[in-house]
């Protein structure tokens, strides 16, 4: 009732023009759109040209027996990088076994026990500095602390050097994951009589597990391709590893060693090892994204 009576009191409004017209503003905006698109394409050129080169050169020289053969001597035919694949996997496994528990526990301490405290700020600052550490320094550090102490290059030392690189990445990504768990969830658990450790183990960590795994995978992908830390710690070997205390080959080191050689067969192996390494890293990244997306 009141609606019909009130509308008659309104003054008539001027008509509205909605037709589009060309203007400087409009053409400038279109120009910027095109520029942004072009620059975006330009930015991806290095990535795709690198992928193209490695895959093209690698595939044309790749032989399946390379995956299980040992590296050949200078000037010899055949051979492969089987021990380097095993070496890289062993190095990354040791690095993950050390850095994942340490990193996640540190993040738990930062967010659940010492949130906002001076100690937490100090640890977070240290982690950020460590994440920017040149990787060669991690190698030199472990060389001084482990290699010299044990008297030899070893898989163990190589794994520890990679762990130094992975640790800050895991701490910072796990902290971010834990911070994204809403406080109401912790309150719910605490309010039901759970201790802090019960809440962390049963509620907080499981709730952010996908993000934790993503962070770990990214750290693994970063560590798998490192050369400098391995050069000072695990060095190289022409043979299969049989213990943690002997030196080992790795994909990055076989690329480094063979890429400068004058023998065509060694160059084939270096390109093929590059292909395998890049596929491993790519696969790790894709898996981590799938895990993150599944949430």
């Amino acid at each position, binding site marked *: 009732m009141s609606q019909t009576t009130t509308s008659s009191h309104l003054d008539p409004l001027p008509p509205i023009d909605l037709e589009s017209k060309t203007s400087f503003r409009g053409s400038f905006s279109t120009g910027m759109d095109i520029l942004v698109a072009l620059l975006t394409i330009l930015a991806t050129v290095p990535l795709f040209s690198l992928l193209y080169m490695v895959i093209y050169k690698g595939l044309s020289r790749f032989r399946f027996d390379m995956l299980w053969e040992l590296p050949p001597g200078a000037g010899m035919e055949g051979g492969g990088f089987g021990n380097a694949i095993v070496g890289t996997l062993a190095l990354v496994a040791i690095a993950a076994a050390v850095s994942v528990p340490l990193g996640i526990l540190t993040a738990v301490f930062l967010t659940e026990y010492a949130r906002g405290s001076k100690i937490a700020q100090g640890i977070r600052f240290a982690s950020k500095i460590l994440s920017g550490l040149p990787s060669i320094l991690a190698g030199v550090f472990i060389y001084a602390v482990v290699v010299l102490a044990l008297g030899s290059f070893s898989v163990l030392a190589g794994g520890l050097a990679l762990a130094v690189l992975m640790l800050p990445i895991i701490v910072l990504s796990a902290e971010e994951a834990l911070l994204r768990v809403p406080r109401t969830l912790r*309150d719910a658990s605490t*309010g039901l*009589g759970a201790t802090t450790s019960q809440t962390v183990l049963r509620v907080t960590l499981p709730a952010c597990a996908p993000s934790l795994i993503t962070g770990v995978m990214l750290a693994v992908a970063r560590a798998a391709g490192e050369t400098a830390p391995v050069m000072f710690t695990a060095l190289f070997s022409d043979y299969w590893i049989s213990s943690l205390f002997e030196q080992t080959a790795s994909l990055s080191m076989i690329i480094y060693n063979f890429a400068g050689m004058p023998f065509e067969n060694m160059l084939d192996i270096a390109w093929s090892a590059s292909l395998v390494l890049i596929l491993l890293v790519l696969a790790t990244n894709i898996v981590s994204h799938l895990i993150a997306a599944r949430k």
Partner: protein
Amino acid sequence: MSESAVTHQKRDVENMSDASVANLIEGPVLEYDKSKPPCTESAFDTRIERFYYGKSKALKHVYVKIPRGKITAFIGPSGCGKSTTLRCYNRLNHEGHTTVDGGVYLDGKDIYAKSVSKRLLRYHVGMVFQQPNPFHFSIYDNVAYPLKLNGYQGSIPDRVEESIRSANLWDEVKDKLQDSGLSLSGGQQQRLCIARAVATKPRILLMDEPCSALDPISTLKVEELMAELKKKFTIIVVTHNMEQAKRAADLVAYFYVDREDPDGACGQLVEFGETMQVMTNPKSAYTYRYLTGRAA
């Protein structure tokens, strides 16, 4: 009705006679006798003189005995300390270091005493939060969680069923107990949280604006549930919905934020009594002004 576009429904409190309005007291109307031992008849004897977050004072003069087997509603403007007070009852105030001058007594024992285990306190004082916050695991495990935590000796499946039934949720979830708690609707999630909170059979159930994130039908279901639950538990509910306080609560405590306090704005308890008495015939002028919508 046609005289004005905005229709004004007269509030209950505006039926007060001019004489009673003139008799209102400018200030809080609650006091307590320090010399008397803490009351053991009530669910909680609250004697908070001052409450601090770190160095800033958040509450003062909260003196109230919460009666057993009733629903007590905490009302008042934003920032008046309703939720802070509620969280004093299970010691879930966690913004830095907190200090309580005075005490909160459960069965005559101060829950802020050094020897008190917060874990056991929370076993006996359940809490439901503003946002429904079920865990990511299954409906069954959500309710079993507090039982497993505290090493419940009886049959967990039986107690889980009993708790879900008492939250009026059983018929809706009995065929999908293994589904994630997050798959339920908002109102069902909140009733799941209630089932979880009553699984340990606490003496007291704290509810912090349990309906503010729910639609009207879910709100009604939760209010009906509260009326049933008060047969078994003492309920303290924070609400900023006057109608809800009137519908659901037996007693009402009105909180006020004292902005003149030398230590900065600070919440305090002004008035406490039967819902109808406070709503229609308050004793404090602070309550009167809040109820007539004239002051925060």
